[in-house]
């Protein structure tokens, strides 16, 4: 960990429940089981998507392996009315928002740039341009504030994103307007091939203070801590006390995306070390030891995950691309002569092709 800096932890890698003065957390057994189930399922789905890509069924995939606790803890802290602005790796957040699993695969199969109805799940589409989503989140939060709404907004950002102008401008605005916004930073130690040290010499959560709002570092592989800290940050936001930067200290176990080759820039030892901090294993140890669940139950979850994975695979393979003409839909909300003209050209061209003009 950077310069012996500490973080909020409620569950040790060994599965020991520990207390933290500022973050009490009472969880019913079924809540604990729910979190475990969430993590097992999204990991399995993540694995399935990765293999689908390997088999050429997806253009790309951004694996979340290793970040399950960060995303499930943060995702489960969100209320239905809250609105989140994810990046491209937030499959766990999408799962918590109720997006059908295959939703995340649509963009990576490139049948669409979106994947779900943002208003149905109160979740924007993934933002690929690093930083943009944080400013959009600020604006949305200003809207909530203006409505006198009670909900909160979450912007999901990464360690690399912390260097982008837009992110820092969003800190300025969030601080000045005290908007109901939580910046959920997943510090997974890498921005593609660049280590976090390339983005900052000091812990990232400390960036917030200089903008006038609190930052807190959490064991991002501890789903309990993530849930507790994110909940309190969201509560703070809802009660009008302004933004918080929550740094989930975690690790990207897999490649940046399926087109990446981590062996070029990082050593196995580092990965091995983080394996010992696995977010799922510690909960498994906890539930079994405390009797919250038995191995029969954990196995049943594996079975459920397996089935879901198969389902998602089938749905994915069934996803067909849009028709060429669809690219002209929704370019504008109102009619546009040039778009209409070009749509007609394509129609004619396709007609011509059907008429066997293909060469």
């Amino acid at each position, binding site marked *: 960990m950077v310069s012996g800096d500490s973080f909020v932890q409620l569950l040790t890698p060994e599965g020991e429940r520990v207390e933290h003065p500022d973050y009490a957390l009472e969880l019913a057994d079924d809540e604990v089981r729910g979190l475990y189930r969430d993590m097992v399922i999204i990991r399995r789905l993540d694995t399935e998507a990765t293999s689908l890509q390997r088999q050429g069924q997806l253009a790309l995939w951004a694996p979340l392996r290793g970040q399950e606790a960060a995303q499930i803890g943060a995702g489960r802290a969100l209320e239905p009315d809250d609105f989140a602005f994810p990046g491209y790796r937030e499959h766990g957040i999408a799962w918590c928002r109720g997006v059908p699993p295959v939703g995340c695969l649509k963009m990576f199969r490139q049948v*669409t*740039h*979106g994947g779900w*109805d*943002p*208003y149905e799940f109160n979740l*924007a*589409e993934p933002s690929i*341009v690093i930083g*943009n989503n*944080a*400013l*959009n*989140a*600020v*604006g*949305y*939060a*200003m*809207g*909530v504030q*203006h*409505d006198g709404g009670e909900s909160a907004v979450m912007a999901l950002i990464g360690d690399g994103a912390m260097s982008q*102008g*837009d992110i820092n*401008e*969003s800190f*300025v*605005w969030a601080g*000045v307007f005290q908007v109901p916004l939580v910046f959920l930073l997943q510090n997974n130690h890498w921005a593609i091939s660049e280590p976090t040290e390339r983005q900052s010499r000091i812990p990232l959560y400390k960036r917030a203070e200089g903008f006038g709002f609190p930052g807190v570092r959490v064991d991002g592989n501890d789903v309990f801590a993530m849930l507790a800290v994110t909940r309190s940050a969201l509560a703070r936001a809802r009660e009008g006390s302004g933004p918080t930067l929550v740094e989930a200290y975690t690790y990207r176990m897999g490649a940046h995306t399926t087109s990446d080759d981590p062996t070029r820039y990082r050593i196995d030892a580092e990965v091995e070390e983080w394996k010992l901090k696995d977010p799922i294993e510690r909960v498994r140890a906890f539930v079994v030891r405390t009797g919250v669940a038995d191995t029969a139950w954990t196995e049943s979850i594996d079975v459920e995950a397996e089935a879901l994975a198969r389902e998602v695979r089938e749905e994915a393979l069934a996803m067909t691309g849009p028709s060429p003409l669809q690219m002209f*839909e*929704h*370019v*504008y*909300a*109102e009619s*546009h*002569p*040039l*778009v209409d003209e070009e749509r007609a050209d394509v129609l004619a061209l396709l007609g011509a092709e059907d008429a066997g003009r293909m060469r």
Partner: protein
Amino acid sequence: MSELTLAKAINEGLRKAMEDNPKVLLMGEDIGKLGGVFRVTDGLQKDFGEARVIDSPLGESAIVGASVGLAMRGYRTVSEIQFDGFVYPAFDQLVSQVAKQHSRSGGRFTMALVVRIPFGGGIGAVEHHSESPEAYFAHTPGLRVVSPSTPNDGYWMIRQAIESDDPVIFLEPKCRYWEKGEVDEKRAPSSLFDAVVRREGTDATLVAYGPSVKTCLKAAEAAAAEGKSLEVIDLRSISPLDADTVAASVEKTGRLIITHEAPTFGGIGAEVAARLTERCFYSLAAPPLRVGGYHTPYPPSRVEEDYLPNIDRLLDALDRTFEF
């Protein structure tokens, strides 16, 4: 009917839009207490409050990026970029989010927002205060780009832009801010995206928008004195482009000159020329000619008169088109 300056007309249009729709918010640097450096938002914060007329922190990317989020939440922001030369920090949000959110979301997110930009030169300003970035926006699918040339258009077009469910880059010819004209608050002159014939003529067609329209009308006057009848078209909308209106004129006159302050190379004039040549090839007695800014950074304003398209350069182009 009232006689207003362009600045005041836009101010009145903004006021009307805010009265009609509580979801309309204004945001930008110095637009509240100060009323904007050109006073276009003068008095609006006093009357609508700081929650609806927001003096924002600095940062154009944030101004536009926040407008995107507000649009997602159902608000209609009219954000002001203080000067043309300061819109570039917002270019990423404009191109990557404003222009694409609607299609990315399959039509669920509506980017009903307006970005006001005082643009163009001729006011003897310092660097970065006289630029004409319209071509960048026109080349960006998903955006609409308009520019009023008269107070009446200023009043109506800003209202129509705010009512539009698509994002509109609203370019205000700052050198015309203080020119007065009749504003008819009762009847909209035409749709936001129609070009209009400002002066009828038979010998050649002059196409312009924003600040250059008046220059064309003056040139037409001068040409008339020489017995040449020029038709002057005010595009009003740069994207979409009302090619029909221009084509109708070119088929009549057979000669076309397009002018704008932005550099000629890769400017809107090229699009108009290429499109109209394709449409009116057999009607053209001469190639469309372009009179625009030169391929140089906007020069020190001491020499801007020599950089900007002026009557002489338009008449010179006219001579050349007739020599063909």
